[in-house]
């Protein structure tokens, strides 16, 4: 059997360049579900609600397809798959623009708990998240919008039976509907990556005030959360607490990159279909080279971004120690591709593409929010250079 379609990572495991038949079947099942449950009429209906999701669809997605726990080990109530399967889910969710607290609960919070939690905490917290019975989210960024954990200001002060949190978090995805908050905070009088740790608390606990922010992308709702002496538990340990925060953000960046290429694929499909239908000057506009070449470039751009997103996910699965650098690479690539694809999709649609009734703006807004969510492309390119050891 030939193995040259794989490359060996430093850990000795192989990085796969093709999905397995099982993974393809899994993707088809997720896609069928979303085609059925998340047509744009539903996206439009849900994005206009305060909650932003349909609890019945969330229950089906959790109970019938087991998606929130797809990457959670079986011992914690998950399906026991890995990063590649998680990214197949996010790619499909991005394509369908599903309105649901998946990224917050399954990607951000579950990975934070997996990275930082003690055995007992994982056993206590993850099964409910895997079942979709409890929605969790992760609060890292503060009103300054900085994704570098070194900029965290929220302070955790030890008290008799845990910690008290003080400060403000912002851009907390689904923070308005979450049941459980995972919060990154620091010990008093520490700076940089020193003194950081993760904490958990009930979202309805005293001293927690949540406010839904008016967001450009109504399909991804974000909240500001004020902590005034809110009681919280330490997740894991205080030693080297920055590490699980960084690795959670890196995994999330990879999942987001895959979500973005899924969205970009939906936009490209829409642009190609429209170019085949729309007639001007007595010909379909798709027969003009100006449009054909634009679409060919969009396809190339998208396939390149897909390759980066897939490779980064496979690198995590293969245990390649380079994976955090690849997370930044994939995030930067997908961010620019998604937004560019969205802008070009509007351009190919012409005037109709700028109307509210046309669906393109739904993805455009997701592209815009994803571009800066978890860090702008320029931030990730600089991280990439540092992670590759190119000194400043």
């Amino acid at each position, binding site marked *: 059997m030939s193995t040259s379609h794989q490359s060996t990572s430093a850990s000795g495991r192989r990085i796969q360049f093709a999905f397995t038949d099982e993974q393809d079947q899994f993707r088809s099942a997720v896609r069928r579900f979303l085609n059925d449950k998340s047509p744009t009429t539903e996206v439009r209906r849900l994005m206009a609600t305060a909650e932003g999701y349909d609890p019945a669809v969330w229950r089906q997605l959790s109970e019938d397809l087991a998606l929130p726990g797809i990457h959670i080990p079986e011992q914690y109530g998950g399906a026991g798959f890995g990063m590649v399967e998680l990214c197949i889910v996010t790619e499909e969710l991005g394509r369908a623009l599903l309105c649901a607290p998946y990224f917050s609960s399954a990607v951000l919070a579950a990975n934070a708990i997996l990275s930082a939690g003690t055995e007992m905490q994982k056993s206590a917290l993850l099964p409910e998240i895997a079942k979709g019975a409890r929605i969790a989210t992760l609060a890292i960024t503060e009103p300054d919008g900085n994704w570098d954990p070194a900029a965290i200001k929220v302070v955790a002060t030890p008290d008799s039976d845990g910690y008290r949190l003080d400060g403000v978090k912002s851009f907390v995805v689904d923070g308005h509907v979450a049941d459980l908050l995972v919060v990154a905070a620091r010990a008093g009088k520490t700076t940089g990556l020193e003194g950081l740790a993760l904490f958990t608390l009930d979202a309805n606990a005293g001293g927690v005030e949540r406010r839904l922010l008016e967001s450009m992308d109504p399909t991804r709702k974000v909240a500001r959360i004020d902590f005034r002496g809110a009681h919280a538990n330490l997740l894991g340990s205080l030693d080297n607490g920055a590490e699980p925060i960084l690795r959670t953000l890196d995994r999330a960046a990879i999942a987001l990159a895959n979500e973005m290429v899924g969205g970009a694929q939906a936009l490209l499909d829409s642009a190609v279909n429209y170019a085949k239908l729309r007639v001007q000057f007595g010909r379909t506009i798709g027969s003009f080279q100006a449009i054909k070449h634009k679409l060919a470039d969009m396809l190339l751009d998208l396939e390149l971004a897909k390759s*980066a997103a897939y490779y980064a996910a496979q690198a995590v699965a293969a245990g390649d120690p380079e994976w955090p650098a690849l997370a930044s*690479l994939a995030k*930067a690539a997908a961010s620019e591709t998604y937004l560019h694809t969205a802008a070009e999709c509007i351009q190919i649609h012409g005037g109709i593409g700028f109307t509210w009734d046309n669906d393109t703006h739904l993805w455009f807004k997701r592209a815009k929010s994803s571009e800066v969510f978890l860090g702008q492309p*320029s931030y990730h*390119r*600089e991280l990439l250079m540092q992670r590759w050891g190119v000194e400043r």
Partner: protein
Amino acid sequence: MSTVSDAEVRSEVREWLAANWDPDMSLLEWRIKLADSGWGMPQWPKEWYGRGLSHALARVVEEEFANVGAVRAANSGVRLLAAATLLEHGSDQQKKKFLRRILTGEDTWCQFFSEPGSGSDLAGATTRADLKGDFWIVNGQKVWTTSAHHADHGLLLARTDWDAPKHEGLSYFVINLKQPGVDVQPLKQMNGHASFNQVFFTDAKVPKENLVGRVGEGWKVAMTTLAHERRGADGLPAPSKRGTRVGKIHAEERAETEKANQPYTWYPQRAGRVDLIIDRAKETGANKDPYIRQEIARLMTLAKSAEWTARRARAAQQQGRPQGPEGSLGKLAASHVARACSRVHTLITGTDAMLTGRESPREGIIAEILVSVPAVSIAGGTDEIQRNIIAERVLELPKEPRFDTGPFRNVRKN
């Protein structure tokens, strides 16, 4: 044939090599043995210098040759494209006349397809061949011909019928270059190299029996040549592992390889040399510049993504899956990488980019990158043609209206 096993082939070729391989033989002497035994091209038909083996079994033969360090049949340049075309479309007489000397390396070949007036539109060729008695008389000009200055034969696409539609008036010939009507001139490129030639035909003669396929089927035959060219590679021959082997035959082969590769010395520079970027940035201190750091990261992201896209395409192919869009994108992606490299090399190099030759960093390599990259988006199909192919074949967008139908005589041309 189908009953031959892996082990049988392996033991047979081992035995034959033990009895025949001798590195002190002359290269020609050895290659004659290869051609006559069929071990030089085991996947070719038995009646034509091969052994009729499957590609998988041919690889077994290749492994055994590599194990003892035995030299293979001649395979550089256009000769194998010529052979593949003749095997598929040539007459028995042509196969007998040409194939053996292709394998022994006695004859060198070149390809006369592109013309000054037909680059992207290859079927618009206007070099003409007119039948007079037993000879086709050829007049016209071909261009971008690698190795024409030392080739013996050329694969020629010429127009034989001006009243037929464009693609139906072409015929395919083997033309002997060693004749007075063929004038080969080097074509100097903007980077100073002369890897190609332009070739002028003035009443050059092709004997009737050198027509390949039928009159008017030249386009179909040329498609075979081009399909093998595309399958073949990206231009560069595989790196030789025989560099240090001792023996008369190895020395002769090295000289042959060097001659064959001479036109390609600048090809790595043409592709942009992404491999030099990080070292060069550290060398010049450009790694401290936040803007240049961004541009380097952007370039490396593009280059890595292009590489992984090619790996995805190969993986899909190896698993026998239908080819996805990623398979048609390599050429266009390579263009983007090369152009981005050229830009970032300039950012890193700064004012030194005004210099060339030995004055330029890395003994002139940087300057050579900057003046060679413009070839990438043209050679082997321009970016614009690639985009048409991607748009029409992958995205299934409609073709543009055409203006070159009807008798070729009436079609507007250069």
